[in-house]
């Protein structure tokens, strides 16, 4: 029963990891940006949420209504200024600039908000409570996060395949010069995609703040690495692959923890490396168009 429990908990945590990963996957898929500052931006999202909750006393669960648009605007501006000018200069510059951004954000948070870890809504029943099915305890929060992750992925899926902006984003991802010729500004489209990505990043930051604690180093130590592991395990450019990748990572960690409590992280990374060796294209691959 302990193993069944581990797998179920792993699947549920996988939802959180998918939430970490979908923004990263989106930015890579559309503009080929590997955003090393992804995790730190999520931490900023969490910190903004904490600030807004403390100042305006909005209910914790509704803080995303403010934080998501704020981070989306940040994403648009960041893409139009820093990331776009890095992109114009090549992949190496993009990596260097996002690495620089990551270090600046992390140490900036450390400098202004200290190394103390903070949680979001730590005393709420939603955060601490759980329900049981048979002998398996399921935390309300994890179930909610999983549902949110699935909803976000469904929303992204719908947006990208049905809406006209989604079509434009997919067209730009396929061929930005053709899009430019057709009269659309690919830079603006990139901005929109970055706004979407950072919207999900904000949700990831809030979710992780409720699930665990946020501190300035969480962004790189946990969120970025887990997000990348989920993306690589799941396969590039596939939204549902991201969910699968998150679930595989989560289950691997829970099973590792079941074997030895201190092996949780190691087991997750070992599965990541195993996928890298055996199936570098990821578990789910998008069919290539001929």
């Amino acid at each position, binding site marked *: 029963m302990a193993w069944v429990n581990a797998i179920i908990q792993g699947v549920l945590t996988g939802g959180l990891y998918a939430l970490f990963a979908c923004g990263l996957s989106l930015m*890579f898929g559309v503009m080929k*940006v*590997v955003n*090393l500052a992804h995790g730190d931006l999520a931490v900023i999202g969490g910190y903004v949420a904490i600030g807004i909750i403390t100042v305006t006393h909005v209910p914790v669960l509704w803080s995303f209504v403010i934080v998501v648009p704020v981070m989306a605007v940040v994403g648009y501006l960041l893409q139009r200024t*820093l990331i776009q*000018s*890095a992109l114009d*200069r*090549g*992949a*190496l*510059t*993009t*990596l*260097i*600039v996002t*690495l*620089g*951004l990551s*270090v*600046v954000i992390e*140490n*900036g948070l*450390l*400098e202004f908000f200290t190394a103390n870890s903070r949680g979001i809504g730590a005393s709420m029943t939603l955060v601490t409570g759980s329900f049981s099915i048979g002998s398996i305890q399921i935390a309300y929060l994890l179930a909610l996060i999983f549902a949110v992750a699935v909803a976000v992925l469904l929303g992204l899926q719908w947006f990208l395949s049905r809406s006209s902006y989604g079509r434009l984003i997919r067209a730009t991802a396929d061929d930005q010069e053709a899009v430019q010729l057709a009269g659309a500004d690919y830079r603006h489209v990139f901005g929109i995609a970055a706004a979407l990505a950072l919207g999900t990043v904000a949700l990831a930051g809030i979710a992780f703040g409720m699930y665990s604690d946020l501190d300035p180093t969480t962004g*790189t130590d946990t969120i970025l*690495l887990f997000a*990348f*592991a989920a993306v*690589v395990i799941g396969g590039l450019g596939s939204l549902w692959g991201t969910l699968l990748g998150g679930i595989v990572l989560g289950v691997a960690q829970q099973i590792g923890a079941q074997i030895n409590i*201190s*092996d949780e*992280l*190691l087991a997750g*990374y*070992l599965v*990541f*490396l195993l996928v*890298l*060796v055996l199936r*570098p294209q990821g578990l789910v691959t998008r069919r290539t168009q001929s």
Partner: protein
Amino acid sequence: MSVVTESGPRPAESFRVGRSQRNVAWTGIGALIVIVVLAFFPYLVYSGTTAIMVQGFIVLTLASMWNLLAGYAGLVSVGQQAFVGLGAYFVLILALHGTSPFAALPVAVIGSGVAALAMWWLVSRLRSGYFSIATWVLAATVMLFIERFNSIGGGSGLPLPGLAGMDPTLLTAYTYWIGLAVTVAAMVTVYFLLRGRLGLVLTAIRDDEVAARSSGARVGRARLLVFVVAGAFCGAAGAVLAISQLQVQPSADFTVQWTAEMAFAAIIGGLGTIEGPIIGTVVYMVLQQTLQNFNAWYLIILGLVAIVVALFARRGLWGLVDSRLHVRLFPVGYWLRSVGADNGRADSGPVDSGPVDSGPVDSGPVDSGPVGGGTVGSGANPV
């Protein structure tokens, strides 16, 4: 590029491809003098100063290696801290078994090189950002793996044994010399790697990977060698770190901050040049020492400077110097010399003009330098 097209009208034998021997000889003598002077520092300055300089040696070694990886081989590794940590732990493990930490250093170098070879098998197929992240995850994995062993300190680390009986002044001096030796070895290795056959391949990869491949350059093998050399020397730097700190700790030795620091030093100084990391390390040390009472501020400023340099001066501070003065302290490229009818032997500027893909900053030496349009295009003999 313009050199080739514009030299059309001129007969081919009027150019000779050569290397600047004179320049190398002077730099060699200069470098030797600098090294000898540096070697006497423990007799001349307080041990506090040499301790700071050991930090500088570590950063310079790391930055040179990161320059080799990212500046030449196109491998943006964010996992070099794996080798820093491994180097430190090799020293610790051997010291726990009674070996002197100084004697353990060569083992740490070889061990880290072998570890790099093993890791290469995992990450070699990945490009660009995926390579970065995979190396990062690998570094995290290595740290978690090492933390499992309680005999070497588990998650909290151990003090380095074997040096407790030494006179502190002597220990500081020895540490300084070993740091200096590692740095000199790293710089010499980088110089000869780049000056040799591999250097041509690496310079070609740096400028245009597809063109290098299609010209028959063995890109994969060159990358493997660079990754192993970088792993070995990052391990050496880690060993020096362990000896200078007298403490080995997973969270301090495997932190991604090492990679951030080496990357920033290399970028600020100038990627794709040997001189760049030296300048970058000086900038790094000055910032770190001036701002050391302001916690993380030096990293924030360093990060911001690196972003600005990456965007607006892609060849770094050394690139700015080079594009104005055409100076190379460690020339590894080839020069065109015109051998005219009247035995004109004017140096006509470096062919190795730094990374090509970096826009207007870069085209300096080629388009407007002495080689450029001027001499060759006009067809006049430089006298």
